[in-house]
């Protein structure tokens, strides 16, 4: 190894602001909505989380790639972010259990990463100006061309993306002799949700995003699950229809993140695009039933309307986000239905909220 001289790279935001950085050795260009994640661990889980589809990720942790990558620690079969912006990229990793470097992982997945950007300045900028589309590129002499291409990238608001990451065909997860059968609608499901359910004696059939309630019901499940996923929940009419039917029949239902938003929409509560979203593994949530706090893993750019939720006759707010009082969880008063905006499956992040999976299984038992 010797001194590693690297080429220039840049981030161009849709409002024309440029942040300069360096290439990590790849060349290319990538587009997406720019968002930031404040986790200090768990980069591989984040990059492979389907909820990030279509987004260029700014990692705020000062170093990325220190412990390489490990095949089992993925949340889907590939990198789902459209590109990475970081401060220091580790070309050398250290972990006995790892099987590859992060650089090779990006190259294998054909995803672009750039480094040496003032990520802190970029995050402050997003915080002040809101999430927006951006391009990252090593083609630093073609700014006008990049601007033109960037203008053609659609806005995240109103964008349906679940179809891009959902399974095409149904599949099964877990032990087929398990006690409970759960039908999961895949809007971009993270693997660790399936692992968490399977660990609790459940056998899961995962359905494509456009499956109907009837198709799911035909398998004769004990409970239903609506998964996390990318994009705006509003265009997901099929999923909302599924949720409505489950609710009508008062069947056990649990929703996470996008699934939570779908359940809210199915109840007539609107959703909105947040200024810059919640993405990190240190988000404080209060469980209003127990009065206890939880440190949670979060990743969402949309949220459900708080006033509409508060005044809804059938719904009560079960969890709130302590930093900004947004709705973090809801529960239907007379139904076997609940959902959370955050990620009890963690991966990455704390395990404080894994009790929600136990609660779901309890709900199934007591149906």
């Amino acid at each position: 190894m010797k001194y590693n001289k690297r080429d220039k790279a840049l981030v161009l935001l849709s409002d024309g602001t440029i942040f300069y950085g360096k290439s990590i050795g790849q060349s290319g260009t990538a587009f997406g909505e720019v968002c930031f994640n404040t986790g200090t661990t768990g980069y591989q889980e984040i990059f492979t989380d389907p909820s990030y589809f279509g987004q260029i990720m700014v990692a705020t942790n000062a170093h990325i790639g220190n412990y390489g990558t490990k095949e089992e620690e993925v949340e889907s079969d590939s990198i789902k972010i459209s590109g990475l912006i970081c401060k220091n990229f580790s070309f050398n990793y250290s972990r006995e259990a790892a099987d590859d470097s992060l650089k090779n992982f990006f190259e294998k997945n054909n995803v672009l990463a750039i480094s040496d950007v003032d990520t802190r300045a970029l995050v402050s900028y997003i915080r002040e100006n809101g999430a927006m589309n951006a391009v990252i590129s090593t083609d630093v002499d073609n700014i006008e061309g990049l601007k033109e291409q960037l203008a053609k990238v659609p806005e995240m608001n109103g964008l349906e993306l679940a179809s891009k990451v959902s399974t095409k065909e149904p599949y099964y997860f877990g032990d087929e002799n398990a006690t409970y059968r759960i039908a999961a609608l895949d809007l971009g499901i993270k693997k660790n949700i399936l692992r968490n359910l399977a660990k609790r004696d459940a056998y899961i059939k995962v359905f494509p995003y456009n499956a109907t309630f009837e198709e799911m019901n035909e398998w004769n499940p004990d409970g239903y699950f609506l998964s996390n996923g990318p994009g705006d929940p509003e265009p997901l009419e099929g999923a909302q229809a599924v949720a409505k039917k489950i609710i009508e029949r008062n069947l056990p239902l649990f929703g996470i993140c996008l699934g939570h938003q779908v359940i809210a929409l199915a109840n007539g509560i609107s959703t909105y695009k947040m200024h810059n979203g919640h993405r990190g593994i240190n988000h404080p949530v209060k469980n209003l039933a127990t009065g206890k706090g939880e440190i949670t893993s979060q990743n969402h750019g949309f949220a459900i309307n708080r006033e509409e939720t508060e005044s809804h006759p059938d719904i009560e707010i079960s969890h709130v986000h302590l930093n900004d009082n947004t709705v973090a969880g809801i529960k239907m008063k007379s139904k076997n239905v609940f959902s959370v905006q955050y990620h009890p499956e963690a991966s990455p992040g704390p395990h404080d909220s894994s009790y929600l999976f136990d609660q779901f299984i309890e709900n199934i038992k007591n149906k």
Partner: protein
Amino acid sequence: MPKNKNINSVLIIGSGPIVIGQACEFDYSGTQALRSLREDGIETILINSNPATIMTDPTMADHVYLLPLTTKSIIKILEEHPQIDAVLPTMGGQTALNLCIEADEKGIWEEYNVELIGVDIDAINITEDREQFRDLMAKIGVPMAPQATATSFLKGKEIAQEFGFPLCIRSSFTLGGAGAAIVYDEADFDELLSRGLEISPIHEVMIDKALLGWKEYELELLRDKNDNVVIICTIENMDPMGIHTGDSITVAPAMTLSDTAFQRMRDMAIHMMRSIGDFAGGCNVQFAVSPDEKEDIIAIEINPRVSRSSALASKATGYPIAKVASKLAIGYTLDELSNQITKSTSALFEPTLDYVVVKIPRWNFDKFEGSDRTLGLQMKAVGEVMAIGRSFQEALHKATQSLEIKRNGLGADGKGYKNYDQIIDKLTHASWDRVFVIYDAIQLGIPLSRIHEITKIDMWFLKQYEELYHLEKEISNYTIDTIERDLLLEAKQKGYGDRQIAHMLKCLESEVHARREELNIKRVYKLVDTCAAEFKAQTPYYYSTFENSVETTDGNVYSENESVVSDKKKVIVLGSGPNRIGQGIEFDYCCVHGVLASAECGYETIMINCNPETVSTDFDIADKLYFEPVFWEHIYDIIQHEKPEGVIVQLGGQTALKLAEKLDRYGIKIIGTSFKSLDLAEDRGSFSTLLKENNIPYPQFDVATTADEALAISDVLDFPILVRPSYVLGGQGMKIVINRNELEEHVVDLLRTMPDNKLLLDHYLDGAIEAEADAICDGENVYIIGIMEHIEPCGIHSGDSNATLPPFNLGEFVMQQIKDHTKKIALALNTVGLINIQFAIKDDTVYIIEANPRASRTVPFIAKAYGEPYVNFATKVMLGEKKVTDFDFNPQLEGYAIKQPVFSFNKFPKVNKKLGPEMKSTGESILFIDSLKDDEFYNLYSRRKMYLSK
């Protein structure tokens, strides 16, 4: 109001004098606790015997007791304040916890109806009694290294036979790993086992299988009464298991921990904290992780109190652990409190970092001649520095620049080792310089795999070192004229000092600085905000870095700088850097008061310091805190940015004072006494001329640069002769010699270790009495704030002497000479601010030993004893806001105050405990006596010659 309405009056126990393993971090935590409780309208009563602390200021608590930390004192306080509802013992280290247990065992808390808050007795007992702790961990399924307890020598031998070597021996109920050792070899076992048993107050040691080379981590936890637990910080030790965490280089956040491993560790930590007891407060948990693919995690220990690491974690994250822990102790829950930095988000969260923090301990082995300098299970460091950067490399460089050991960073200063065997030896036996030796090893071509095999330091860190080495080589291919912007920026981003780059480019430091300016490579300042910029922060806590640029739509290209300069008049206070023997907490006390007094005068105050244990680096103290090395380049850049009216150097000890010359040269105003006067006092030749002109006696002296010169001088001066190098701290290298042989030996030795230094030879006034005076001078008038007489005769460093305020047996005639000399010298030196003068008194004549126109070690002591804020007054004088005559001095002291030095010799078993002109004590305590008939005084007086070296 607090959630617990029954708590209205709280007793806080301080940590007492500074010793190795328990330093000024507890002044920081205690100060925060007091402020936090008072915010809630709670009456605070404090006990601490350490006068050099901010926490013992009369304004800090409702009642301050400067009493010995004994149950007798506790009873006295509880008698005088029957209203005390609760005691908070978690802010004063192990000392406070131990006193709390003792009082509990004696039934004192019960008798006076005092509730224990912040921890419970069972938790203290369980975590300190290693046998109980091990049983509990086994019960809750938390793995530990194979361990067994021995309460006898025989039992210890049996255990060793069972486990095999290497083994660790740890004494129960001790501090900073006292009595702990790794035994590699059966031959050493007996001795180390006996010592471990002896040191333990309950004659008990834990023997465990040594997990050498396992990676070591620390987590800082907070829990409230609702059982909400948050992890404030995760710290990774770069030095793996086998070196005490207080002696390890540590990094935050963890650098080489995957999320899966970290979350398992987090779960274990929370589980452990919940299992040891039901209390609201802070905890520190230590873990080891196997460096193989299994990533096994085992628990090492848990401390149910704030610690050195929680002080570090508070500074590293911006989350004030002690402040919040105090609120939790009085019944608040985390979700009711707000984040102290953002002021808008919740305190129930886990801080996240977008920078890297590196802590390096500061050792003082040179003070303990003959000491074992190898690092191990027992802490030996006397202080520490912390540095913040946007990468590990930058933070590591800044930390090495903060140490004040004449290094400019890693490599590129021509000071590295080049001998293969020496390097291998130094890698194997880790000591103060291993952080530098790793770089030397890479430079010499020793493979990383070999360095890893010897040190067990994770390869990620070693690779980071290697990258630095490659960068140094690359830069060395250029000259100042040919180096490109990108490469120079990269060097600065990785923390290289201008001096180092100058070394690589073979040019001057000033040329590198000029080239940087020309290429627009400027230091920018970023905020420590607990949240990686996710939320807007309100707190002005900054560190420097270098960043790539941003270009706005109108073509403006810049690097983002978050430190916005106000148009107020400003003053910078230079801090005292890492604690070391001779320069400790006293100077932090002075800096804090300097800041507060400047603020009272309407200045915007700016603090620069790099010591995480201090109150001065609490972001609530100054208007702006720059957590930066007290290193020329960093200071100069801050001055360029802030453009203050001037810089206060006389409060930060020798560290700040040493920078005066350069500040003066660069035309920066020094507030108070000018550089010319500071230099005059330091220069023996000119200073003695000044004394002569003023008819003030001083011991005969001369200056030598060679052994020959020294011997010639000795013919003129009579033996005994005091030999010392000039410009040193705490009497380093000072010795009294009685004949030519000794003189020659010492001079040769000094010139070898400190080449190119001038040596001062004084005629030593044998059997003289020593005294010192501190005064405030505004250039026209002088007020002597206190005169202290040493109990031991002349020859023992003033920092190591017991001393009384006021003097106990100096006659009127002598006292008048002291006063006259002090006034004359202060005026002759044009002092503006504080001055300390040391005297030797023989045959009723008062001789001047030295004068230091700056805050001295004794100023805080005198301020406490007399109950007057002298540093505040002196600062106002320095700033020209007040004259000495403007103050109404009214010192209050009945009887005498005795300053008693405290030593940490138990950490260095083989070191000679003899005292001499070189300072060895690590801390001090204050004792008030009504009269000289007091037993304590009598004891000190009668023992005064015991430790004196010839």
